[in-house]
């Protein structure tokens, strides 16, 4: 195939015309010279040359590619024909676009979680290492010692680096101080990962303890306004001065794909940022280091695993107490562990199935529309067949047409998906930890969208095309429908509608279940007051405050806020209930053995907390302004008391944790603690000022304010108070308790919204489908209806006839769809709260609702059938 030749056909044709003209001139001239008269000479020249037009055409043909010519003609023809039916094009593009957008959107998530790796250099040789315990049963993280041992002794790796768990900090600067999350990493982290750098550089050897920071691209854009002179500048990080040395590439948020780290500091300075308390806490939790390792060139994963296995045995033998059953596990860097994968797999599979259902409904709708179009073309088809066109020649343009429609739908879908992704990126998940939500479209996603569109186009188009290209010739000549085969009761159109409606039953039932679950969870009583409570958080510990200064700050801020007008009471706590995270510790009776302890949610609160957020008292009293260094006091909830003491009196008893002993001074009612859908958990409330010294809370301290009047005004006033006492403090999580609880419902809300959107679009598509099929049936039976009316059928009878046919289709669809829906709800049940999988409200409500909608969809065609004028119908055509 000669492309330049094809492209310069036009120019070449002009030259050919000139060449031919010259040839004829020369020949005429020669003939004249032989003595012929002018006219005769020209005539002879033409005779000898033959038809110039044919010569031109032949050269033109030589220069073109036959298949492409045909294709181009078909495409042009197709576009012309489609432009003549804009409403169909619009309907098809929108329905396919919706279906494709849903699928592409979910694929972006699959792509991110399963397919894509972090943007590191040479991802093939970079591995995540994990220690395993109990002979592979339990997967963990490295302790500093284990990492040092491995780092010093392993020979299969060119080098390995470690990074620590995510770390909160307050970043100052020209803008308002901001709470950000980052990681500390060994100085060779950037070298081992071979991370490309956007600006500046990563850590270099010898910077283990230097106050330097690398920031992520997004933080650079947000906090430093994309200032390219940022490298070398000093920035305040949790009250300490750090030098910015680099900016990572866009899209890099750490090796771990789930968390979104925004800055990196050398491991050696972690202590300064985290405070000694956090590290002590970490040490108690076991190892916290994640390790990446770069394989030596020429060393395979298998050989490396063999070496790691022998080392694990050696370590276990050297210190059997610590390293019993030790092993090492390798994973491609940034890949999810199989347990994490399984968690996402369920979720993503469910979403994919739902998205595919919507696409199926859209497809059958489109197939129906195209069938109707094909039916309109039966005359043309019959004529073309009579003229000797082959089957393929008839099918090809129709397939092309549906292909083009599907591609247009695909483009629309991708655009919709981009809008949705943008929405998701700006969406703030109300979680304390920084979860990486950013999904992006890359070539893999676009390829998926393209393949999906083409497949969908072919699927939708093939059936109608095959049906249309096989018209019943005698019928067609008589001017009757050429697609209805005599004696065939079930047309393809009917089957498609039944499929649509039954899929719709499945979707709507699932939607119903999730909606009911949402309503149930929203109606749950959290056990405390939700109105007229305001919260605001600060994190002094991660802002360079010592414990003593923290105490003073909290006290003075509390006094300031209490003096504000409209503030009834204000108390500090280390966390607000329903924040999706908790801190647990094991408690037991002083006289008991360690095995009898149980895990308990721990809150550090102040006296007045219970009255401020309205948790009712059962027994005892509030903390009596206990001294910070005095005997430790605690308030328990009913569940704790029941589990610990049974029917015994709890007030006055002592309980102990690993470190301390507490006297229970009061008992309060149960409240929800982490999520609204949980069972009541045992909770122990400790005295905040007696425990400030223990562990600095990762999420800072929250001030709960019981107010009267305007929340926004009071919130601004509180913010001003905090700003006045220390402008470098980042203020975060400012909201009312109602907003906080609404955030706590985020997961049921998202589930209900996703299914709601999918379910409603499915319903809409199915209704349009049913309406289309019934309209078509009525219009093709106009004559029959005319005859019936002429023979004495009543208009009501005709109406019934049409409605009965439509409802018949729906009934069959229900019979097929309901068992499928029941099966689907069994799967969905895991994600439901307070609703049984076979919830009778849903499973009777949804079919009734659907039947009603179907009735409406049938009513309009039925009305049209009933208004047929027999006289006109019989003369019709």
């Amino acid at each position, binding site marked *: 195939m000669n492309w330049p030749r094809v492209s310069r056909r036009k120019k070449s044709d002009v030259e050919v015309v000139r060449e031919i003209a010259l*040839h004829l001139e020369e020949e005429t001239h020669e003939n004249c010279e032989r003595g012929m008269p002018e006219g005769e000479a020209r005539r002879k020249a033409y005779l000898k040359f*033959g038809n110039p037009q044919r*010569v031109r055409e032949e050269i033109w043909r030589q220069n073109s590619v036959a298949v492409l010519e045909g294709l181009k003609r078909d495409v042009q023809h197709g576009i012309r024909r489609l432009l003549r039916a804009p409403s169909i094009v619009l309907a098809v593009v929108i329905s396919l676009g919706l279906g494709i957008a849903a699928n592409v959107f979910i694929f972006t998530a699959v792509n991110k979680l399963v397919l894509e790796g972090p943007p590191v250099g040479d991802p093939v040789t970079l591995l995540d290492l994990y220690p395993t315990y109990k002979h592979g049963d339990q997967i963990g993280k490295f302790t500093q010692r284990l990492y040092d041992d491995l780092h010093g002794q392993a020979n299969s790796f060119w080098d390995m680096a470690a990074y620590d768990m995510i770390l909160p900090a307050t970043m100052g600067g020209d803008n308002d101080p901001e709470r950000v999350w980052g990681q500390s990493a060994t100085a060779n982290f950037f070298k081992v990962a071979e991370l490309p750098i956007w600006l500046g550089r990563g850590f270099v050897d010898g910077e283990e303890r230097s106050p330097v920071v690398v920031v992520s691209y997004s933080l650079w854009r947000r906090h430093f306004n994309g200032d390219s002179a940022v490298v070398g500048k000093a920035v305040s990080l949790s009250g300490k001065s750090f030098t910015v040395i680099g900016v990572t590439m866009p899209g890099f948020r750490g090796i771990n794909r789930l968390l979104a780290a925004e800055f990196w500091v050398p491991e050696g300075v972690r202590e300064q940022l985290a405070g000694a308390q956090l590290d002590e806490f970490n040490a108690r939790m076991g190892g916290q280091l994640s390790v990446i390792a770069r394989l030596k060139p020429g060393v395979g994963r298998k050989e490396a695993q063999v070496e790691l296995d022998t080392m694990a045995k050696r370590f276990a033998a050297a210190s059997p107490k610590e390293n019993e059953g030790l092993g090492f596990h390798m994973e491609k860097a940034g890949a999810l562990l199989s347990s994490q994968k399984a968690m996402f797999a369920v979720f993503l599979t469910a979403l994919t199935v739902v998205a595919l259902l919507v696409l199926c409904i859209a497809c059958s709708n489109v197939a129906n529309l195209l069938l109707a179009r094909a039916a309109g073309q039966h005359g043309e088809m019959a004529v073309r067949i009579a003229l000797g066109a082959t089957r393929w020649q008839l099918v090809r343009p129709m397939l092309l047409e549906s292909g083009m429609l599907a591609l247009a739908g695909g483009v629309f879908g991708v655009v919709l998906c981009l809008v949705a992704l943008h929405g998701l990126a700006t969406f703030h998940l109300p979680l304390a930890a920084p979860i990486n939500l950013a999904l992006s479209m890359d070539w893999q996603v676009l390829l998926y969208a393209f393949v999906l569109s083409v497949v969908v186009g072919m699927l939708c188009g093939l059936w109608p095309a095959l049906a249309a290209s096989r018209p019943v010739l005698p019928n067609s000549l008589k001017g009757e429908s050429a697609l209805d085969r005599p004696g065939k009761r079930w047309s393809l159109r009917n089957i498609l509608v039944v499929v649509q409606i039954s899929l719709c039953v499945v979707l709507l039932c699932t939607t119903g279940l999730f909606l009911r679950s949402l309503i149930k969870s929203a109606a749950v009583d959290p056990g405390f007051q939700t109105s007229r409570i305001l919260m605001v958080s600060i994190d002094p510990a991660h802002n360079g405050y010592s414990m003593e200064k923290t105490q003073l700050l909290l006290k003075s801020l509390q006094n300031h806020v209490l003096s504000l007008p409209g503030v009834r009471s204000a108390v500090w706590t280390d966390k607000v209930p329903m924040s999706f995270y908790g801190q647990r510790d094991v408690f037991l009776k002083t006289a008991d053995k360690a095995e009898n302890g149980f895990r308990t949610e721990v809150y550090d609160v102040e006296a007045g907390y219970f009255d401020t957020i309205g948790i009712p008292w059962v027994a005892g009293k509030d903390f009596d302004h206990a001294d910070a260094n005095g005997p430790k006091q605690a308030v328990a909830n009913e569940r704790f008391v029941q589990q610990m003491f049974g029917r015994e009196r709890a007030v006055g008893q002592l309980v102990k944790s690993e470190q301390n002993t507490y006297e229970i001074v009061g008992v309060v009612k149960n409240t929800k603690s982490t999520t609204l859908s949980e069972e009541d958990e045992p909770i122990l409330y400790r005295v905040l000022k007696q425990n400030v010294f223990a562990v600095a809370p990762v999420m800072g301290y929250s001030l709960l304010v019981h107010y009267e009047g305007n929340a926004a005004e009071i919130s601004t006033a509180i913010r001003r108070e905090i700003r006045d006492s220390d402008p470098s403090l980042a203020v975060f999580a400012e909201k009312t308790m109602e907003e906080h609880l609404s955030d706590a419902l985020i997961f049921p809300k998202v589930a209900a919204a996703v299914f709601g959107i999918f379910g409603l679009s499915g319903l809409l598509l199915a209704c349009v489908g049913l309406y289309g099929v019934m309209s078509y049936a009525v219009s093709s039976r106009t004559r029959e209806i005319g005859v019936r009316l002429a023979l004495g059928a009543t208009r009501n009878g005709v109406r019934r006839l049409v409605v009965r046919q439509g409802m018949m289709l729906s009934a069959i669809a229900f019979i097929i769809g309901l068992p499928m829906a029941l099966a689907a709800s069994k799967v969905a049940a895991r994600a439901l709260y307070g609703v049984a999988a076979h919830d009778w409200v849903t499973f009777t409500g949804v079919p009734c609702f659907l039947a009603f909608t179907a009735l409406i969809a049938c009513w309009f065609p039925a009305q049209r059938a009933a208004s047929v004028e027999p006289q006109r119908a019989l003369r019709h055509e």
Partner: protein
Amino acid sequence: MRSVDKTKPVNSELLKGTLDMMILRTLVMGDAHGHTIAKVIEHSSENVLEVEQGSLYPALHRLEDRGWLDSHWGVSENNRKARFYRLTKEGRRQLAAETGRWKKMARAIGLVMGESLHEKESER
């Protein structure tokens, strides 16, 4: 609908091949435009091969596409702007190959047909 051009003779491929060869041969003597080529073929065949002159041009374009010919615009003997064709190196090589093949073929056909020709002559 694909249709077969009924006007084309079945052995057009054979004819095309020989026409190509003759064009190449003509251009050995020097650059020429289409009309000259047609005249030369006519004259040197003693007016036996009176091809439809039009069919010359598709052949010329085909040969140029294969890289056996080059073309440029120049001025004809009669002072008209004309497109001149020139034999390329590759064209020369092709001509040599074609000529060799043709000679072999002509000899073979001559051998087969020789006897019958001889018979006819003797009858006369």
